[in-house]
């Protein structure tokens, strides 16, 4: 296989982590909402934790994006 083609395929494969990040972010916000509806008075205090969880989860997807960018433009 041509090296250029292999790079393109690799970059495509590196986009798969986005699926995991999407599922993870969905779980975080979904669980926060279900908790917040049960006890609305405690929701505001936990927003910071929500955003930290969101940022940490999103990172795994972004790593995939960075790998794709490295494959396409750096290697």
């Amino acid at each position, binding site marked *: 296989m041509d090296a250029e083609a292999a790079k393109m395929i690799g970059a495509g494969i590196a986009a798969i982590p986005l699926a995991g990040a999407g599922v993870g972010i969905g779980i975080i916000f979904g669980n926060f909402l279900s908790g917040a509806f049960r006890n609305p008075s405690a929701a505001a205090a936990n927003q910071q934790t929500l*955003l930290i969880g*969101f*940022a940490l989860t*999103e*990172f795994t997807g*972004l790593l995939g994006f960075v790998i794709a*960018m490295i494959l396409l433009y750096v290697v």
Partner: protein
Amino acid sequence: MSAVDHLFAATAFAGPMEQFEIVSIFPFGTENINLEFTNASLWMLISVLVASAFMFAATNKAQLVPGRMQSAAEMLYQFIANMLRDATGGEGMKFFPYIFTLFVFIFLCNLLGLLPTIPGVPHALHVFTPTSHIIVTFALAMVTFLLVIITGFYKQGFGFLKMFVPTVPLWLLPLITVIEVLSFLSRPISLSIRLFANMLAGHLILKLFAGFVVGLLAADGLFKAIAIIPLLGNVGVFMLEILVAFLQAYVFAMLSCIYLNDAVNEAHH
């Protein structure tokens, strides 16, 4: 050539990656050390100037009952102060100037990078987002990282190393300590990649959608009408990007607060 064709001709050569190119404005430095003033430096300088101008204007004639500008500045102050106090419990309030500067600088770099470029200006003056370059975000993350290490050893001495040794069963200890050290060392990497990748991805999507609009408008007949779809999409993405610009600055500042908490307060786990 119509106006639309002209636009298309201009963008046909400038791909979506063109916006991240570093262009020298003012060459400076010796043969081995490059200190030139680039468009990245220019936009960092602009965000510092905008932040300073805003804070000076807002607090210039401070009154007991604040006006509009002053309340905006006070809200910003309160917002960061509460975040830092929640994370470090008052002990870390000495670092308020650092966290405040960090937040405002990153937020303005992100936000000013979303401005549209005036058509026809030279490449060096195109709107540029400094935070879309990993070296900028990595430098900011390293400042936080070194600050945590130096403050930790200064305040707690070698007790700072207790942070890596949580209370777990003895046979787990070697494994957990290695994991704790690795997770500590990966902090600057995750901090910098999160901010940089968000900015890079967001701006790429904006430019790709804008390219679709121009490309479809250049097509003939009924295809022109389809251009409304990527245009509306771009409006949505742009609103999301404004949110992301704030959220990433907030996350960066908040994680810095949490990391500083390890340094100023003794670990108790």
